[in-house]
C-alpha cells in the first residue's frame, strides 16, 4: 500500500517510503542534511525554506513529500556552486544584502527563480519576486540592489 516516492534533489535520486504527508523540509534538513533550507514559520508564509521544484519557486515547509513524485528539486546547496549561484552569492555579499542571514538562502532561491525567468528585472519586478520572502533585518533595499547587481554582473548568464 505504501507507495515509494522517487524524486531528485540537487541532481541525486531520492527514494522516500513513509508517510506521504511528511514535510519536504524535514526530508531535506533531517534526512539529507541540507540545512541551508531554513524553517522560519512552518506555514509557507516567510519564504526562508524556499526551494526550486520543477523550475518553480515553492516553500518546502508546506509541500508534502507525496507531491514530489518525479520532481526535480534544487536547494541552495544545489545551486551555490553553479555559475548562477555564485553570481548571486557574490552579489548578495558585495551588495550588503546579508544581515542575520536566516532569510538569505531562501531569498537567493527567489532571486534565482526571478532571474531565470526575467534576466533584466526592474525594481518593482524584483520587489514582487521577493515579496514572499520576509526579512526582518534589512528593510529590503540592499537585497533589491544586490539582485539588480546579480542581473547586471551575470548578463548573458541569465539569458
Amino acid at each position, binding site marked *: 500500500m505504501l507507495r515509494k516516492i522517487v524524486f531528485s534533489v540537487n541532481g541525486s535520486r531520492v527514494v522516500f517510503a513513509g508517510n506521504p504527508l511528511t514535510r519536504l523540509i524535514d526530508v531535506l534538513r533531517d534526512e539529507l542534511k541540507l540545512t541551508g533550507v531554513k524553517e522560519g514559520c512552518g506555514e509557507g*508564509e516567510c519564504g526562508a525554506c524556499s526551494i526550486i521544484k520543477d523550475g518553480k519557486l515553492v516553500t518546502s515547509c508546506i509541500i508534502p513529500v507525496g507531491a514530489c513524485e518525479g520532481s526535480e528539486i534544487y536547494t541552495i546547496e544545489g545551486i551555490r556552486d553553479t555559475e548562477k549561484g555564485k553570481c*548571486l552569492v557574490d552579489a548578495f*555579499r558585495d551588495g550588503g544584502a*546579508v544581515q542575520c542571514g536566516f532569510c538569505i538562502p531562501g531569498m537567493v532561491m527567489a532571486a534565482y527563480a526571478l532571474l531565470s525567468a526575467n534576466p533584466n528585472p526592474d525594481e518593482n519586478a524584483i520587489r514582487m519576486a521577493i515579496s514572499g520572502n520576509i526579512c526582518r533585518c534589512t528593510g529590503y533595499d*540592499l537585497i533589491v540592489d544586490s539582485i539588480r547587481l546579480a542581473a547586471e554582473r551575470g548578463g548573458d548568464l541569465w539569458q
Partner: protein
Amino acid sequence: MPINCIDDRVVRVDAEAKARGEAMYASDYSFPDMLYARMIRSDIPRGTIDSISVPQLPEGYYFISAKDIPEGGKNELWMIAKDWRCFADGDVRYVGETIGLLVGPDRNMLDYLASNVRISYTEQEPAVTIDDALALKGGPIVGEDNVLCSLFCEKGEKMQGIMDRADSVFTETIETGFQEHVHLETNGAVITMEDGKYVIYISAQCPFYVRKSVAGLLGLQPEDIIIRQTTTGGAFGGKEHFPDVLAGPLLVAESVIQKPIKLIFTREEDMLYSVKRHPSKTIFRTALDKEGNILGIDGTIYYNCGAYLSASYVVLQRGVFHANGVYDFPATYLKGVGVATNTFPSDAFRGFGAPQTLFAIETHLDHIARKFGFDPAEYKARYFIKKGGETVTNGHIVEEVKLPEMMKKIADASDYFRKSKEYAIGSGKGIGMSFYNHGGAFTGNGEQAIIKAHARLVKSGNRVRIEVGSTEMGQGFQTALRKIVANALKIDMEQVDYDNPDTSLVPDSGPTAASRSTMIVGKIAEDCALEMKERWNEGDFSVEKEYQHPDGHPWDQSTFRGDAYLGYGWGAACVEVEVDKLTNEVRTTGIWTCHEIGHAIDELIVHGQVNGGVIQSLGYASMEKMENRNGHFRQSSMSDYVIPTSMDFPRQEWFLEDNPYQWGPQGAKGMGELVFNGADAAYVDAVERALGITVTKIPIPPEDIEEALENA
C-alpha cells in the same frame, strides 16, 4: 589589502557563508544520541495548579519540572532581578509560563505526549491591560498596588505653578501596543555535556547573561557552564534575556538525563510564548501660553511589564529619560510606572523603552502645533536641545547637536515645506516629520559600576584574534569590530579573527544590547589594538583591557540625576503618504532619514541598519498588531501578525550627519536602536494630515483609521 581608511566600505565577513547556507544556526546542530525537548506551558493566565497529570512515559522519555531542581539549586532565573521562575510551581502567572519539559528521542511521540498532559487549575481573574493592573483586577499580582517599578525626574519650576498660570493645558493620552520581534530564526538551543561540563549552544545576544542566569538552578557557579553562541538569526532584544527561559529548563533536564537535548521553538511558540515590546500609555498635560508656547510638560508613563520584572525597570527608565524627545522644554515632570499584569513578561526590544515615549511626545507636539496653526516640524524645531542644554535628568548635552542641519537635509530632499503647505488636511496626501535620539550604552554609570566590560586581543604570528563576549546577530558587529581593530593595527582585516563567543574562551564584554557594542566594546578593543601596535615586534602576546569611564559624566543612580547617557545618537525622519479614501489603505510614497551616529564605522553596514530599523518602526506604526484577550495573545503566526514585505514601503533616501564622538572608536557612537526610534511618528503625522484625523494609538491599520475618521 590593508585598510588605510576607516571609510573604505568593506564586505561583511559573515555574508558569504550565510548566503551559501553554510552558517550554522541552533536548529542546524545535531549530536549523536540527541534527544528533543517540548515545553509544557500554562494555558491559563492566572491561577493555582491543582494537579499535573503526565501520561505514562515510554522508556527514554522524561518529564522535567520544578521537582527536578536539585537540593542547593533555586527555581529562579537571574536576569536583572531573580523573580522569573524557571518552572511554574504551585501557581501560574501568565499564559505560556513554563511548567515542564518533555524530553525524548522521537518528536512524534513528544507531540503525542504533550497533547496528553493534563493540568488542572483553580483559575483566578487575570489583569491583562495597564488599566486592569491599576484597577487591581483580580487582586494585586505584586505588592499591594501592582507597581513593579517606578521613578520620576523633574526639571525646572514646579508643575503646579506652571499649570496655574498657563493659558491652557492640553491633556492627551497616547498609547502603543505590543510588538513581537519576529526574528526570522525562532528561539532555540541545544545542551550537551563535554568533558564533564554543561555546554549550551544557543541563539542568544548575551552568552554571559545566560550562564549567570541559569547556574543557580543547579547551585553552580556561572563558570561551571559553557555557553557557545550559535549564528543568531536576528534578535532585536528578543534574545537578550529570553534565551534564559530556554536554557534554564534545558540545564535542569541535562542534569537528570546527561544526553544532548535540543529545544527549538516553532513559530507559533515563538509568537505566543515569548517576550514582547512593552505596551505603553503616556498621559501628557502640557501647559501652554496664548501663542502656543510650551511652559511645561507633566507626563505620566505606564508600561505593561507582564508578570515578572525581567528588564522592565531599566526599560522604564529609558522610557522616562526619552519622554521629552530631542527638546529642551523649560520644565518637565516625568513619572514612570511599570505595572504587573498576567501577560507574558515584556522585555527588551530595539529601542528599549525609548520608542514608546518618543512616539508619544512627537505625536503630542504635532497635535499642539496643528491646534495653533503651526507647521509641526517648524514648531518642534523651536525646542531642539543644544549643546549644554539641560536634560530631563538635570544633566547636560555634551555634544554638538546637529538637528537643524539634519532637518534641512531631509526637508530639502523631500521638499517638505512645499508639500506641507500644498497638501491640504484631509486631501488624501500627507507628509510628516519626526525627530528622535537614543542614549548610547547603559544608563548613567552602568558601564562603569555594573558591566565593567573587558576585551582581549591575542597575537600569534601575524594574525590577531579578537576575544570578546559580544555577539553578531545580524547587525554587523563581527565585521565592524574586525575593521576597527585592523584599522588601529594597520593590518589587513583578513588577518583578524573573531568567532562567535564561547564563554570559556573569551572575557565578558557585557551584553550585546543598548547600542553599546561599537561604542563601548569597540573602544576597548581599539585601545587594545593601539597598544598591540606599539608592541607589535614583541612576538606572540595578548592585550586585555577593561572599560575606562570618560570623565565629566556625573550620575546618581539613586535619584536619577545627572548625565543619563554618555552621548546620544540623533535622528530625523520624513515620511510621505497617500491614502486610498475608498479603503483607508496607506501607501507610503517617500521615506527620508538623516542620522547622526558620530562617525560611521562602515557605511554599507549602517545603510542596512537604517533601512531595517526604519521599516521595523513603520511596521510598528502601521500593521503590527498583537492583541491580548484575557491573557492570550490572539496573533499566533506570521500570517496573522504581519510584518512588512518588500512591497510595503518604497526605497529609502538616507543621510548621515558626521559628528565624530570623542570617546568612541574612530569617532563612532551607537546606532542599532536609534534607527528604530522615530519613523513611526513621522508616518502617523503624515497619515493624520492626509485624512484630517487624530491618532493617539498605534498601530493604525485601515480598520482603526475607520474609527479615527468617525471621531474626526
